[in-house]
């Protein structure tokens, strides 16, 4: 065979010349040429294994045609391939007859029936009849291999897709082929379920009905399903999904392969929390306080509820009103609320983040990296939350890059994370001292320092611990900017469309389009009534102002400060003190239960528009089902309220809102509605411009711990008491109860044995929690997940403190 350079490889497939990349598998080259070769085990996002032999084709490399598996044969120059030869057809018939030898053919009761590659390919390429008359193998049908996934071993064709995914992609090899020959079967270890955060992907890629998902089993038949492409907004990664419904009820999400974002994968939280949209606990009608019994919320109508809300806002006046939330909204809804607050009310007291992120000016000014850039960088420095817990698919992407050896992932943090097993280096530091740890590293002669300074570097930055104020993270950002000026950033922020909300101006001091208050675009000045002139309060400041009686009305837009703000005591005090609390939400959360007026909003799947992910990529959200009860889109609620306050948002539809955004937001100029609605939005439209200059504060030092206390670290878990998880019956049981993890020596010192209840004392609260000895926790540190059922860390945290210490005692 001749030596070939990239452009020279050319193969003939069914008589047609096809150019191919060196190393490309034949089946992929055929796909690009529009020639479909049947397959079961081959998956473009995993390494080929040649398990099923369905892809046999006639390959001639000069020695005559020979049957070869096209998923295992790399293209070679001059190769001639026939995918329709007599031999190929006989091979396909033979393989299908083999695969069906043990297959139960219970299609009528199989979830996969109707969209099953085995069914379809048997129809298209099968022999039509089997010669097998013997007894097929039998197994118990189906066995749960985790809380979410069931396995029917009789249907399994042993393609190795699920097991390969678990090992190669997810890094959780908890399912494996066991036994051998005819007895080969996929299994977990006894009593060790396939409890991977990514288990649902195996159901999607299983080419038969062997793996089924508990939330979807027997819910619908594929031909009853309607499907639209949308984007997951559970976290800020922005994975592309296909949303499917049957009879106006969401029944399934499937991952859609987008090169720049999720590669077709979804985490189980994003995949299965559609159940919450269908929940009977949704707020279906406006609610207001009962005049006779103020402890009660009573069903009301939109007219009276809006009138009450408007009256409270009016009375408070622009200086004494605040709006918290917005990162669960579409960009359009966020823009409507932003315009409502800043242009109609004239207040700048708005914040989409709940004191658990980074200041909007910093987020919008940091030089942005894309996810793809992170996965191709020499080094990724993670200084933020546990990516596996909070941005699960980003974890998969980074893990993929690290295991392929192209990227070194380095983390600096104070507790173990899901990155550790594949990290090049995990640097542990005391809570609040990550900046110091980095400076020490860079000053040393450690080869890693040179690597950070020279190679391409992407920093995933966010608030690692909610028991720390924002300050340590900002110090770190400052030292990275100073010492590693070539670094670009991926902000790891909490909640779905937080980036879009900030872009739309839902933050103090910011106007839509990543501009400061004092730099409104001419289009914005022309369009908006007013623009606030002084910077307003962020969430922490608003809650503080409310608690000291300086705010009269608080509007919560899909926000639950009692559960999500790091300092529950402050949030509780604020909510208690404000005269009127208005909540626009989908569920009665802790905070909504305290509201005076509750306005029901549409949820995911019930609203269309756009969303923006952490890298600034805009993609579409598509409405699939009709709204629950009388719930309305947020932009309509904002418009109605504005109307009642004598203002006019002049927004009539989502499309109109986008047109306005494109005009008034300098960063989004050129991203027209036509582009957003075109196929370009499948990959997403990247917006990285910003006119905000970065201005970082000088680093401070956290106080020295007193030796008696333990320094608290608190991050979120994938399975926690988040609203959509709590109201998804399949997911709710997965959230573990709250437990405090402490180094065994620290427990021993206090005479406490692992697993017992202890009294946890902080300056804010004293509560009883189970303590567990965990030697992966540094001494002097205690880890408490932020929001587990049975008690959140927010009760112990003082938002004003840079770091928080707790003491524990025997009960």
């Amino acid at each position, binding site marked *: 065979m001749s030596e070939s350079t990239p452009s020279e490889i050319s193969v003939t497939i069914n008589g047609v010349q096809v150019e191919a990349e060196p190393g490309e598998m034949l089946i992929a080259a055929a796909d690009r040429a529009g020639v479909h070769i049947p397959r079961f085990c081959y998956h473009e996002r995993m390494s080929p294994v040649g398990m099923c032999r369905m892809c046999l084709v006639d390959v001639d490399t000069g020695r005559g045609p020979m049957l070869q598996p096209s998923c295992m044969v790399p293209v070679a120059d001059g190769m001639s391939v026939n995918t329709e030869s007599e031999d190929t057809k006989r091979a396909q018939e033979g393989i299908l007859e083999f695969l069906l030898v043990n297959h139960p053919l219970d299609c009528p009761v199989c979830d996969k029936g109707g969209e099953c590659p085995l069914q379809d390919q048997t129809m298209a390429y099968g022999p039509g009849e089997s010669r097998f008359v013997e007894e097929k193998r039998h197994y118990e049908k189906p066995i749960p291999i985790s809380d979410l996934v069931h396995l029917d071993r009789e249907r399994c064709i042993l393609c190795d897709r699920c097991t390969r995914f678990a090992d190669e992609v997810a890094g*959780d090899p*908890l399912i494996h082929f066991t*036994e*051998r020959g005819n007895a080969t079967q996929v299994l977990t*270890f006894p009593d060790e379920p396939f409890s991977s955060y990514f288990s649902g992907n195996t159901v999607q890629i299983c080419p038969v009905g062997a793996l089924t998902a508990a939330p979807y089993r027997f819910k619908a038949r594929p031909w009853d399903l309607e499907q639209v492409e949308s984007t997951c907004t559970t976290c800020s990664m922005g994975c592309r999904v296909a949303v499917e419904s049957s009879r106006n009820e969401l029944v399934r999400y499937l991952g859609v392969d987008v090169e720049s974002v999720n590669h077709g994968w979804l985490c189980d939280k994003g995949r299965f929390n559609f159940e919450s949209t269908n929940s009977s606990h949704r707020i279906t009608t406006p609610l207001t306080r009962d005049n006779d019994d103020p402890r009660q919320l009573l069903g009301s109508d939109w007219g009276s509820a809006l009138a009450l809300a408007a009256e409270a806002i009016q009375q408070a006046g622009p200086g004494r009103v605040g709006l918290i939330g917005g990162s669960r909204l579409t960009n359009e809804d966020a823009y409507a609320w932003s315009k409502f607050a800043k242009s109609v009310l004239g207040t700048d007291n708005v914040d989409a983040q709940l004191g658990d992120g980074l200041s909007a000016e910093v987020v919008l000014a940091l030089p942005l990296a894309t996810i793809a850039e992170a996965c191709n960088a020499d080094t990724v420095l993670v200084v933020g939350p546990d990516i596996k817990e909070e941005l699960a698919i980003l974890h998969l992407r980074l893990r993929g890059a690290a295991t392929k050896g192209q990227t070194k992932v380095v983390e600096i943090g104070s507790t173990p994370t899901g990155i550790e097993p594949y990290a090049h280096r995990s640097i542990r530091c005391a809570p609040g001292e990550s900046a110091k740890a980095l400076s020490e590293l860079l000053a040393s002669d450690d080869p890693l320092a040179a690597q950070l300074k020279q190679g391409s570097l992407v920093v995933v930055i966010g608030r690692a611990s909610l028991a720390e104020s924002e300050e340590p993270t900002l110090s770190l950002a400052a030292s990275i900017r100073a010492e590693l000026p070539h670094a670009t950033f991926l902000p790891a922020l909490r909640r779905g469309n937080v980036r879009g909300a900030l872009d739309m101006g839902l933050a103090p001091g910011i106007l839509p389009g990543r501009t400061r208050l004092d730099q409104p675009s001419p289009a914005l000045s022309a369009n908006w009534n007013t623009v606030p002139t002084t910077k307003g309060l962020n969430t922490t400041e608003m809650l503080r102002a409310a608690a000291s009686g300086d705010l009269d009305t608080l509007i919560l837009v899909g926000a639950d400060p009692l559960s999500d703000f790091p300092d529950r005591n402050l949030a509780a005090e604020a909510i208690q003190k404000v005269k009127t609390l208005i909540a626009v939400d989908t569920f009665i959360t802790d905070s909504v239960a305290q509201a005076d007026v509750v306005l029901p909003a549409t949820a995911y799947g019930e609203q269309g528009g756009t969303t923006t992910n952490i890298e600034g990529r805009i993609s579409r959200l598509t409405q699939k089902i009709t709204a629950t009860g009388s719930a309305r889109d947020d932009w309509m609620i904002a418009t109605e309220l504005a109307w009642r306050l004598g203002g006019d948002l002049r927004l009539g539809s989502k499309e109109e809102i986008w047109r306005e955004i494109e005009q008034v937001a300098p960063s989004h100029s050129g991203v027209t509605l036509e582009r957003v609605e075109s196929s370009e939005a499948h990959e997403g439209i990247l917006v990285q411009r910003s006119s905000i200059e970065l201005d970082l504060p000088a680093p401070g030092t956290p106080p020295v711990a007193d030796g008696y206390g333990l320094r608290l670290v608190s991050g979120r878990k994938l399975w926690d008491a988040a609203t959509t998880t709590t109201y998804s019956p399949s997911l709710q049981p997965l959230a573990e109860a709250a437990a405090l993890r402490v180094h065994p020596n620290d427990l021993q010192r206090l005479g406490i044995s692992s697993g017992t209840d202890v009294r946890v004392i902080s300056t804010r609260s004293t509560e009883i929690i189970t303590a567990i000895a965990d030697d992966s926790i540094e001494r002097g540190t205690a880890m408490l997940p932020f929001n587990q059922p049975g008690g959140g860390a927010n009760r112990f945290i003082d938002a004003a403190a840079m770091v928080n210490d707790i003491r524990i005692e025997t009960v």
Partner: protein
Amino acid sequence: MKFFTEENLELAHEIIGRYPKPRSAMIPLLHLAQEQEGWVNDDAMTEIAELLGTTSAEVLGTCSFYEMFKRKPVGKYVINICTTMSCALMGAGDLMKHAESRLGLKSGGSTPDGLFTLEGAECQAACTEAPCLQVNYRHQYRVTPDQFDQLVEDLASSDSDIPKHGVLSQIRQHIPEDKFVGSTPPEDVVSAPVWLNEDGGRE
């Protein structure tokens, strides 16, 4: 629950150290577990997984692939009677029937005293010596029913040098550390292979 004895745990660490990647030690450790208990139980697989930094499911996958790793208790002596062609022609069927009645069990079963397990097996590559069997994978050739009875008696009275099931060899292999895989990258090996003597001939 911990499975390995302290001594075997130490050995396990030594074995792991011989390979560039801990996972490569999976089969040797499964043998070590089988040597300790005569079979491989779930605790053993879990501990091996921990030692190798992998999951129990992966260990189970490997362990269950090999028929010679037993995942149910077996007798101290596992007797495999070859039932393939040559042996079958030379009376393996009768031998099996005899063995079953002598031991009072069916092929696949174990005696209640925990001494014997009887199994049928595929060709043991000793077809010229048919019918043949193996006791803990040690060959016995041209076995007659009488010889079988004698064999069982000898084994029962410990009058045999066959070690208990799971012991691969009477001599423990010790590999000097400089011969561990990965300790010298192949490109740095300049000396002649160890099995060549000084004149370049075989030892």
